[in-house]
């Protein structure tokens, strides 16, 4: 029997990553470099918030969790389990795109692994969003290639963005001290370490094609803490803004 506490922990960290990354990406709406990209990036941000909603619903319907909207908008910061990667402010398009590339590949290996999960709602969800993730990574790969090949400046900025982001991105795979073993033993998912290696196998060939240098991962210290409720100073203002409308009247029906 899979423990509800372990499943809940896994779902909350996955969902919070999606929600916060979706919110950050949506901050680009209206500011994208060209109209086509503005629309594409905004649309993918909506997809991410949709993934978060689907996961909060699983929590609500299968594991006795709270109503998804209240859970998303009324939780205090310390109860969030998102990684530091998604909390960081958007910075320039170089940082935002590199984060999109690293995060979406991490997302893809995670959801692909859930196709064989012993927890059935995970199987259904991973099948449902497979096509979306395929598009998101296609978009990210195409942009990484384009910007790295376009000019010397583009190449230098993408390499800097990669150097600045890689430790944060590796932090997505922070294992849970309390639940990791149980989730792996019950075949809910293959565990963070395995996903981390699958992720490296995905991003490496694209980076090579773009002539970008992946830093030596043995010298990188992944940025952990988010999964335990320790966050950067950027999260609190984001949550305040995100919940502003909802919290005007928490009983309103939309």
């Amino acid at each position, binding site marked *: 029997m899979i423990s509800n506490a372990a499943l809940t922990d896994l779902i909350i960290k996955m969902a919070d990553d999606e929600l916060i990354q979706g919110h950050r990406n949506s901050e680009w709406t209206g500011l994208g470099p060209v109209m086509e*990209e503005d629309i594409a990036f905004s649309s993918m941000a909506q997809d991410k918030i949709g993934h978060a909603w689907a996961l909060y619903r699983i929590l609500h319907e299968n594991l006795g969790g709270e109503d998804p909207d209240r859970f998303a908008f009324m939780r205090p910061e310390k109860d969030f389990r998102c990684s530091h990667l998604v909390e960081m402010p958007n910075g320039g398009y170089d940082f935002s795109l590199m984060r999109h590339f690293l995060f979406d590949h991490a997302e893809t290996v995670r959801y692909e692994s859930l196709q064989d999960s012993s927890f059935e709602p995970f199987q259904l969800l991973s099948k449902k969003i497979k096509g979306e993730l395929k598009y998101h990574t296609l978009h990210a790969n195409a942009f990484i290639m384009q910007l790295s090949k376009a000019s010397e400046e583009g190449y230098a900025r993408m390499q800097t963005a990669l150097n600045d982001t890689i430790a944060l991105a590796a932090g997505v795979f922070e294992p849970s001290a309390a639940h990791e073993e149980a989730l792996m033993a019950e075949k809910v998912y293959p565990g963070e370490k395995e996903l981390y290696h699958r992720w490296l196998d995905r991003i490496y060939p694209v980076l090579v094609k773009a002539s970008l240098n992946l830093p030596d991962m043995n010298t990188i210290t992944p940025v952990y803490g988010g999964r335990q409720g320790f966050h950067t100073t950027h999260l609190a203002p984001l949550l305040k803004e995100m919940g502003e409308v909802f919290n005007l009247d928490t009983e309103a029906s939309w």
Partner: protein
Amino acid sequence: MSNDSLDPRVNRLKLSDANAVIKVEEGENWNVYEVFHQEKRGAHHEHVGCVHAPDPQLALVFAKEQFARRKKCVNLWVVRSADILAFDVEDEDMFANNLEKNYRDASGFKVMEKINKFKQSK
């Protein structure tokens, strides 16, 4: 010859000689790509509009969001607008129908009368 303009802002741009040959480097300018949309397998791809993109791969990526986000779609084509060969607009007269050749129009044949007559004779 320089590009003298009455607008000082244009002069400040230091535009090159109007007669100079303009050389556009590969990848320097974004191209326009025409987008063709396929609603179901086996159906024709139909022209739905265009997108700006630096290369064909990104044109496909953009086309997916612009033209396949809401409407049903199973496949897309993109082709650089500059790669399409078209007749000149002035050559429209080539397509004009000669009134005296309307016997060539399939619509000119009146067959229903004959068919009905044949049916009745049976």
